[in-house]
């Protein structure tokens, strides 16, 4: 099959090669149409966001106000901070110009003069690569003021790369905007949504790198062509990043709706030592995990995964074999979300830490079965009560890991154990009564 996002062309990251393979032709084609026609085309293509929520890209663009006296902005989200996800890196490295072209077309469609490409700070090397690609695009006059002459239109846009400082939360769209503005990476309360009040309170659209990279292909081949690839309700190809216990981990571009078992056994070469699979997280660490015995017939697209109680997320598939200690896995995930919680709103700030503390206690052998119920209860209390989706991201792994692998977690806890209670007499800590004395 044809690859859209990462075509198999040698040295495509060099602008000569990109131009020789029809580079910036899509942009030319797009400029012949009106912005509304482009939005309509993308809508009809069925392109859905690749950043996790799988929201229709065309619909998102159409939320941008048509008449406004404020400038509009495009943010391209390359923060890619979800554990298990490493697909955008591949685009930065192998196909940067298609991403830039996509950004130009999107700017034209939504009427933005400025696009920001937000790349996580840890991607130092790829920021350099991208900056080189952007500079080259400028020197070839495909970006900036001079693109008016190149394309012969009365439209120009600029693209700036913004380097993140290494916070998971800045991958959330509203804190990404705060981060670009130079503020603390705190998510904003929604509504108002970015399309009404985004960057510097101006209308803003935020799309994932992969989503934007798909746009030139849609314009080039037409929406019908794109909508026929893969699952009808979630068409196109998806970059799957497979990691964990597989023989050939890596990023694979496949049509959506591919069988998960196909992906693991045929594409990624199966599990080392032919071991059984205990658990698969299909879309990055925050998505609900699937049991090994649940995998048969599961297809990798938003709708199918929803049916089996998970989500496509960023397409980062993590495979764990039968020897994996899921408690350790969960502790690592819980630690990550505890560490990355921004601390703005109460449930996530306090809840993530609490869950990690309970899990550590279980790991130390001081857990009871009731603690597992407590963990689920805490996760439920976080879910839905927070400003941004990090609440869910932190709650889901704990909640679903424990409910779906309860039998395994019961092995890690004791039936009858009395745990030391250090907080019973809080106020006494200032006095000379030792803790041991109080507990008697």
């Amino acid at each position, binding site marked *: 099959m044809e690859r859209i996002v990462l075509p198999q062309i040698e040295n495509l990251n060099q602008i000569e090669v990109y131009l020789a393979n029809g580079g910036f032709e899509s942009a030319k084609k797009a400029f012949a149409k009106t912005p509304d026609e482009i939005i309509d085309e993308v809508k009809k293509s069925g392109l859905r966001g690749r950043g996790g929520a799988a929201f229709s890209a065309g619909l998102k663009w159409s939320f941008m106000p048509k008449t406004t006296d404020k400038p509009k902005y495009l943010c391209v989200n390359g923060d890619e901070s979800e554990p298990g996800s490493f697909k955008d890196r591949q685009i930065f490295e192998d196909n940067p110009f298609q991403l830039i072209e996509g950004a130009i077309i999107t700017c034209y469609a939504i009427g933005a003069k400025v696009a920001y490409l937000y790349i996580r700070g840890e991607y130092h090397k790829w920021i350099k690569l991208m900056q080189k690609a952007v500079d080259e695009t400028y020197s070839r006059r495909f970006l900036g003021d001079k693109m008016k002459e190149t394309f012969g239109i009365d439209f120009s846009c600029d693209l700036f790369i913004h380097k993140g400082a290494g916070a998971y939360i800045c991958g959330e769209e509203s804190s990404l905007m705060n981060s670009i503005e130079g503020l603390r990476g705190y998510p904003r309360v929604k509504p108002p949504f970015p399309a009404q009040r985004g960057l510097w309170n101006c209308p803003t659209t935020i799309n994932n790198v992969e989503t934007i990279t798909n746009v030139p292909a849609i314009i080039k081949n037409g929406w019908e062509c794109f909508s026929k690839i893969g699952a009808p309700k979630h068409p196109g190809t998806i970059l799957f990043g497979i990691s964990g216990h597989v023989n050939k981990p890596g990023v694979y571009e496949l049509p959506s709706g591919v069988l998960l078992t196909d992906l693991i056994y045929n594409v990624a070469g199966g599990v080392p030592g032919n071991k059984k699979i205990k658990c698969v997280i299909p879309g990055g660490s925050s998505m609900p995990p699937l049991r090994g015995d649940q995998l048969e017939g599961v297809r990798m697209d938003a709708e199918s995964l929803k049916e089996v109680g998970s989500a496509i997320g960023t397409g980062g598939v993590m495979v764990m074999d039968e020897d994996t200690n899921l408690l350790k896995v969960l502790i690592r995930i819980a630690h990550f979300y505890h560490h990355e919680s921004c601390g703005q709103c109460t449930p996530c700030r306090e809840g993530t830490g609490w869950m990690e503390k309970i899990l550590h206690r279980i790991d130390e052998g001081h857990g009871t079965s009731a603690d597992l119920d407590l963990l689920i209860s805490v996760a439920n209390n976080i879910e839905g009560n927070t400003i941004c989706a990090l609440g869910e991201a932190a709650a889901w792994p704990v909640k679903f890991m424990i409910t779906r692998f309860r039998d395994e977690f019961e092995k890690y806890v004791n039936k009858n154990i009395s745990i030391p209670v250090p907080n019973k007499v809080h*106020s*006494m*800590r*200032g*006095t*000379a*009564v030792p803790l041991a004395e109080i507990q*008697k």
Partner: protein
Amino acid sequence: MPGQKREKDLNIFEKLYIPEIAKGMALTLKSMFRPNVTLQYPEVRFEPPASYRGRPVLVQENNGIERCVACGLCSRVCPALAIEVQASETDLDKERYPVKFEINMLRCIFCGFCEEVCPEEAIVMSKDYELVFKNRNDAIFGKDKLLVPVEKLKDRLEFLRKFK
């Protein structure tokens, strides 16, 4: 009342009172061999049980610092308004301490509410029941009289842990 007939007149035997006297003497005789319960106060002093509510005192830790953080709850709960606390800041971990703690023993009704409400187990009812003063000012006990080392209050503290 003369002229009126009594409900029941005593008969001669009863009028002699001798059997009754004998009965009384027998009881006295019996009691003579019972164990003695009267204490020869002040030579012998009554040692009350742990549940006894004597005068309220402040617990002083071994390092000489009172447990009290001057939260003022005892003062607030006191139905007789006997307790006055003035807090101040200390460099100790507890931040707050009573620079003045006064219990007006003329107001105190030994109800034990202060002990019950105390979040620090800092004020407890002692076994001390000997309270004598000659004027109103002497009846106001300051920290000097209220602070009692924790060893002397072990009974009461154990009792509180068990039953409070």
